[in-house]
């Protein structure tokens, strides 16, 4: 064997050694994070499915196959479950469009280098970082039937007083009732309690939408506006024909994020109403919580949780699609 060949061998061996060292080192770097994720994030997903196949009331019981699922979707829990699905979507319909509309208008105004911009932005964002429990405790008293200032303010324009968070009656029902019309039960609409929770959610998340929209507005090239202004476009036309279309990725993004947020909403509803009055604010999340924690039906609750997860995952996948297409980040 020539001297050159030996040297080549040695070099290859040392390269291999280096690759092995790098591999081992990389796995060691990943170990702490993956150990935690494996135990509390990855394995539980499979465990949740396992639990959902059993009668599991506090302790593991008999194997039930998909009976928990059929109970929820078509059987003994169906009425209760579908009602909570309907409450969740009603809650979404009351919060998301309003959040997006107000967020858009405020971000659009703030973006125009208006005076006091930094102060406004700080203010709008403050609710978002305030803990839900503390903020909800405050809202409970702001909307208190007796001591709340909202009733006081409404009283000055001849309305109310309302029970807000304790009011199970539907919004449409109450409005019609004001004019002496009695609506059938199916047309009663969302309860005033749910609407009050929605007001809280809008207040709490507004700052989030504004931040995302501001980032999106920053990505729109200034030249588009200048060109349109040269053509004599009005403020409204600028907004309608340039801002809105070019901001549509952010709007869609906020829409999916907000949908996920609504599907996951727990803290504010738990603190404000705990699902009441008369179950009118019992969303799917609250339903899952009551089933597994307050009623101890862990198997049934887990099946409900798996169904909820599937819905949330669908929205997450959509959101990822959009995120991929968003080339320029804030």
């Amino acid at each position, binding site marked *: 064997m020539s001297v050159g060949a030996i040297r080549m061998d040695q070099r290859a061996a040392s390269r291999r050694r280096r690759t092995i060292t*790098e*591999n081992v*080192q*990389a796995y060691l770097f*990943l170990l*702490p*994070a993956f150990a*935690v*994720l494996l135990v509390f*994030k*990855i*394995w*539980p*997903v499979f*465990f*949740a499915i396992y*639990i959902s196949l059993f009668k599991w009331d506090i*302790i593991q019981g008999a194997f039930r196959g998909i009976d928990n699922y059929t109970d929820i979707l078509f059987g003994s829990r169906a009425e209760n479950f579908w009602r909570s699905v309907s409450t969740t979507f009603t809650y979404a319909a009351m919060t998301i469009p309003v959040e997006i509309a*107000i967020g858009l208008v*405020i971000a659009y*105004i*703030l973006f*125009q280098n*208006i005076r006091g911009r930094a102060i*406004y*932005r700080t203010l*709008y*964002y*403050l609710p*978002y970082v*305030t*803990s*839900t*429990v503390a*903020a909800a*405790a*405050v809202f*409970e*008293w*702001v909307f208190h039937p007796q*001591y709340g200032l909202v009733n*006081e303010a409404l009283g000055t324009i001849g309305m109310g007083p309302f029970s807000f968070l304790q009011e199970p009656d539907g919004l449409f029902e109450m409005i019609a009732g004001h004019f002496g019309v009695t609506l059938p039960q199916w047309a009663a609409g969302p309860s005033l309690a749910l609407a009050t929770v929605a007001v809280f959610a809008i207040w709490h998340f507004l700052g989030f939408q504004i*931040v995302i929209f501001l*980032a999106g507005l920053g990505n729109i090239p200034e030249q588009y506006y200048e060109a349109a202004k040269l*053509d*004599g476009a009005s403020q409204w036309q600028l907004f309608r024909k340039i801002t809105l279309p070019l901001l549509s990725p952010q709007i869609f*993004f906020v829409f999916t*994020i907000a949908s*996920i*947020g609504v*599907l*996951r909403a727990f803290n504010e509803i738990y*603190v404000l109403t705990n699902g009441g009055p008369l179950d009118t604010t019992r969303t799917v999340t609250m339903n*899952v919580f009551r089933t*597994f924690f307050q009623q101890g039906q*862990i198997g049934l609750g887990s099946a409900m949780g*798996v169904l909820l997860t599937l819905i*949330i995952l669908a929205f*997450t996948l959509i959101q990822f699609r959009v995120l991929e297409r968003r080339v320029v980040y*804030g």
Partner: protein
Amino acid sequence: MSTANVLARTTARTPARRTSRTTAGTVVKHAVLILTGALVAYPFYFMLTASVKGFFEASAVPPTIFPRELHFENYVTAWGMANWPRYFANTVFIAVVNTTGELVTSILAAYAFARMNFKGKAALFALLLATYMMPAEATLIPNFVIVSKRYLNLYDTYAVQILPFLATAFSIFLLRQQFLSIPNELRDAAVIDGAGHLRFLWSVVLPISVPALVTVAILSFYGSWNSFQWPLIVTSNPDIRPIQVALNAFRAEAGSSYHLLMAAAAFVVAPVALLYLVGQRYLVQGIARTGIRG
């Protein structure tokens, strides 16, 4: 549109008219901002003013908008009504350990994904992505069972409030993005100087990644400070419960003495509100870049 048309339009609009229109527009814009700003700020105003009302004023109907007397001793009373020092200490301890731990695990993992070559990198990254997309709701019930007596037996401990949050896919993604942006020339120079990965990570990567690290730290701290549902279901011993759960329990204790509840809410919110005012830039950047919503 023809040039003549454009010229006609621009000349048609006199400077005076344009100024008055912009002024009107500015007034409307400010009006919108001030009105919504007042609505956003009102609950904070209510919390602060109600927290200093006297007992009789707090139960007055109609409620007063400006407190007639300032009873700052409410804060002392509220502080004495529950074991707040303990709750604060618990929460600070949990938050600090969580934040530090999450920083360490995510720095190491993010570095491996960004700057090291190893077998199964793509597969592990895909697994991480799947973890990221999995909502907390998917793991709530199984984790509740896993930490129960039958398995890990962690009910009513600090560990149960810390362990599950010691690593998040989100932080790893955020830091990986940052570490990827570091030029390769820096690594080449470090290799020539004989520096290994740890050395390079410690003395080159981390110092230039401080803003991203601060973002991760602040978000993690927020998460701990405001966490509610998990400690609510896995703890019952008041001595180890965190501040949000304690505040929720305090609602019942305060009863209709809501001036005391507002004082308690104020001192629970104060630390994060201050952190927000100081670290606003990092927090807002982090949110805008990643689009997370708690």
